[in-house]
């Protein structure tokens, strides 16, 4: 199964990506997912979640995970 990637808010608009799939590779990290998607290093302030939990970019992903990228949150 591929990795399912979601982007939110200003990032969604800037990349023009709401959701997309990235092929799973073994030993892949969240940062690898980002780089495969954008060909860039993660910008400052970029946040990420794996299966609805905040994680670091060094976190390993698993086949079928949902990875999300987003700017600082501004709710409430």
């Amino acid at each position, binding site marked *: 199964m591929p990795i399912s990637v979601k982007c939110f808010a200003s990032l969604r608009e800037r990349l023009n990506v709401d959701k997309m799939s990235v092929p799973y590779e073994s030993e892949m990290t969240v940062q690898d997912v980002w780089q495969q998607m954008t060909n860039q290093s993660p910008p400052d302030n970029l946040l990420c979640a794996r299966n609805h939990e905040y994680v670091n970019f060094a976190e390993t992903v698993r086949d079928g995970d949902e990875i999300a990228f*987003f700017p600082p*949150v501004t*709710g409430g």
Partner: protein
Amino acid sequence: MKIEIRSEPYDPWLEISLYQESGGLTPGSFGACSAFVGTMRDFNDGSAVSVMELEHYEGMTEQQLSNLAQEAQASYGLLDVLILHRVGKISPNDPIVLVVAWSAHRAAAFDACRDMMELLKSKATFWKKETRPDGHRWVSQNTSG
């Protein structure tokens, strides 16, 4: 406990009344209730704001709110918690967030309500986009409480 994300306007005070009357809270059991309502202002960071769009991460956000409510309930021994959060297109004077904590005594209610609000502001996956006279702008970050 009730946690809800709403795409329609709501009256926070009526929501508290209805929730209290809905039977989850035993009458006579709670001595203290602390409630916080965050409302959309028509002015932010030196500019008029005419409308706001509130986006969230469906699935993750609900889980976060539910987790923070359950953790507050456990650590402060709360009797009950109510959290509502608005999403979608929002107008000035519309309530955005409602956080309510019920407890036997006041310290727990005050502490828990504020803690839940700070966690919600700093962690919950919501994003605001303002419409100003000079165009749209994503709010870059929340100020600390």
